[in-house]
């Protein structure tokens, strides 16, 4: 626990330092440029294994287009900071970077602002949720690059089979606690940050609710949503299913808890899988399975979708080459290489089904495929970050007993509707 905190703190300090350094470098780079000859810049994660990989792939691309060198513009890995930098650049109509790595939740915002080019859709191999997140008002604005997906980890030594429903999960977890086989039932990310929203959305889908209906109206205060939040609140405040400390937990806290054998279930991303499998660090190595988050009555099984897409800067001077680069980077060959070297899941369904992926990734691919296929895109809206902030605040208040679940969601819905009105994005009256 303390180790986890120390590591996140260190990571945060390092992130802050590097992002400051990167910002300076980026500004200097911009000041220094102005060369007239055609060239392409790519911006995205470029540290460590990802950095080596992207440079190698860009070199290969440069051989296809020998007259156009491609440069990497390094941007901070922390999502908020990269987002802020992109928004500043694109507001200033900077022509670079030409190709941008965008978080799955930014596409609608950038598309609505007119900062990225609409693309021709000609490929339906991508996971539906990833494609849904790449569209804005029916048009495609980005190409899925890699996906991340919420998984429910379960202990194969404590249970004979994975839970068939959320009620089953709760019952078997509480039984394991009662019989002394585990200290904690389910651990999830309960701190007030984006991770909490993904956990809430999985519960929401499990109970049959949604943030928007098909006409774009806010439905986050529906009875299904209230049931979902009430379930989460009771899990942490009265049932003892989720430890109270989870109110301050992010991914790594939950992993440490599950890895030390304390918990029966954990909601987390695929990155935890290889770490849990290491017998020298993990008390549960070889005793873990994954499934999508199970359904409650009236809902369906679900998984939150993460990951990144590639999009093209509206002000680029080289739209054709930029499109060629996007196609090149999202081609099966490059995706497989990315899975092998950086452990990132391909956004193409065919790669899961062909079996070549199994050599590159040490993940239970059939289960992961089921989860990505069941995944729901997070609400696709230009005001996602405000919407997320509002949900974070009210869900966290409900979980810490400051608001009743129905009041919390009613208030969140009111804030979101006001926001849609203010920004002119509210759906037209019927």
């Amino acid at each position, binding site marked *: *626990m*303390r180790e986890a*905190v120390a590591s996140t*703190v260190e990571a945060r300090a390092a992130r802050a330092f590097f992002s400051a350094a990167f910002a300076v470098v980026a500004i200097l780079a911009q000041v220094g440029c102005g060369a007239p000859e055609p060239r392409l810049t790519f911006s995205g994660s470029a540290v460590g294994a990802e950095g080596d990989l992207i440079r190698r792939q860009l070199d290969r691309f440069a051989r296809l287009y020998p007259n156009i060198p491609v440069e990497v513009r390094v941007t901070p890995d922390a999502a*908020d900071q990269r987002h*802020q930098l992109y*928004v*500043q650049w694109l*507001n200033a109509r900077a022509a670079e970077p030409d190709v941008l790595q965008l978080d799955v939740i930014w596409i609608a*915002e950038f598309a*609505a*602002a*007119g900062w990225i080019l609409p693309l021709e859709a000609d490929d339906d191999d991508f996971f539906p949720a990833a494609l849904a997140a790449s569209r804005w008002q029916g048009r495609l604005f980005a190409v899925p690059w890699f996906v991340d997906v919420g998984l429910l980890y379960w202990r194969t030594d404590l249970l004979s089979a994975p839970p068939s429903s959320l009620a089953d999960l709760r019952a078997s977890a509480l039984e394991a606690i009662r019989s002394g086989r585990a200290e904690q039932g389910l651990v999830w990310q309960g*701190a*007030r*940050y984006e991770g909490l929203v993904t956990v809430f959305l999985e519960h929401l889908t499990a109970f049959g609710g949604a943030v928007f209906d098909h006409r774009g109206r806010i439905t986050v205060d529906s009875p299904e949503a209230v049931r979902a939040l009430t379930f989460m609140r009771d899990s942490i405040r009265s049932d003892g299913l989720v430890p*109270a*400390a989870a*109110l*301050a937990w992010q991914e790594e806290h939950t992993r440490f808890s599950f890895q030390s054998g304390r918990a029966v279930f954990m909601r987390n991303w695929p990155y935890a899988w290889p770490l849990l499998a290491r017998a020298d660090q993990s008390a549960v190595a070889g005793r873990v399975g994954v499934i999508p988050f199970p359904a409650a009555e009236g809902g369906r099984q679900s998984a939150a979708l993460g990951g990144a897409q590639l999009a093209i800067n509206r002000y680029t001077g080289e739209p054709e080459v930029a499109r060629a680069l996007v196609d090149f980077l999202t081609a099966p060959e490059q995706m497989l290489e990315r899975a092998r070297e950086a452990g990132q899941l391909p956004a193409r369904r065919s790669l899961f089904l062909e079996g070549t992926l199994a050599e590159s990734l040490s993940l239970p691919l059939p289960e992961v495929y089921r989860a990505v296929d069941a995944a729901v895109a997070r609400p696709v809206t*230009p*005001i996602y*970050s*405000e919407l997320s*902030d509002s949900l974070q*605040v*009210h869900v*966290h*208040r409900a*979980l*810490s*007993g*400051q*608001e009743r679940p129905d009041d919390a969601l009613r208030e969140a819905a009111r804030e979101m509707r006001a926001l849609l009105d203010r*920004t*002119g994005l509210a759906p037209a009256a019927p």
Partner: protein
Amino acid sequence: MRTASVMRAETRLAFLLMAPALLIVFGIALIPLGATAWEAAHQHDLRLPWLGEPLIGFRNVAEAVTDPRGGSALSRTLLFAAVSVPIELAFGLALALVMHHVTRGRALARAAALTPFALPTVVAALVWRFIFESTGARAGIDWFGGPLIAWLPIVVADVWKTTPLVALMLLAGLQAIDEGLYDAARMDGAGPLRQLWTITLPLLQPAIVVAAGFRTLDALRLFDLPYVMTGGGPGTATEPLSLYAFTVLMQRLRFGYGSALSMLIFALALVVAFASVRLLGRVSQGERR
């Protein structure tokens, strides 16, 4: 006639001599302030460029005043100042008296007392978070889990961090008090408590007002402790006004509205600054009489 022209010449000279100082004040205070006010009068949302940047007058300020999250952030900020500043004054006075009366190893004692003040606030906040997290885990208390209890670590860290500054300011006041007064009081048979009550505290009033003013101004712009220790949570229970303004400005990138919130913080600080200057004037006048 001649005296008037001399006066005018002197006035001109005075302005000339003050010019560099005025220029600096203008450059570092008024220009940014004016720019923020200008920003606050516009709708400027970096992420919603299709809305443009129209002049909307006081609409942002009106929204800030009626925003429930802003309102509760304001009352929490005021409450924090009302609770933490008196504690810091009390502890600071005690520490100042100790530092004043220590005779051996005086330099060492003063340096030791000042160390918390020398530590960067973010580092201090991290250390205090570890302390509360680990002791809480052992004792089974979740210090950061409840809306009210989560303030305790913040207030403790703030008191620990700023008491030395208060002590330093009060120590300067203590040293300005004439020792002869204490000799006379002792001659008349006044005990230490009586001396504190009738000599030290009344004569220390100006220093106390200055320290209280500084601390209140500081407390009203509370940011780094909750940012590091609680992130404003649970919910928004420990979110002060400046942290909310930061979220609006730097995360939502709503420059207009964020600037309006900043102007509110500025107005608040201005009121406190004026009040403490007035109070200081009255206190020192009373002393002279």
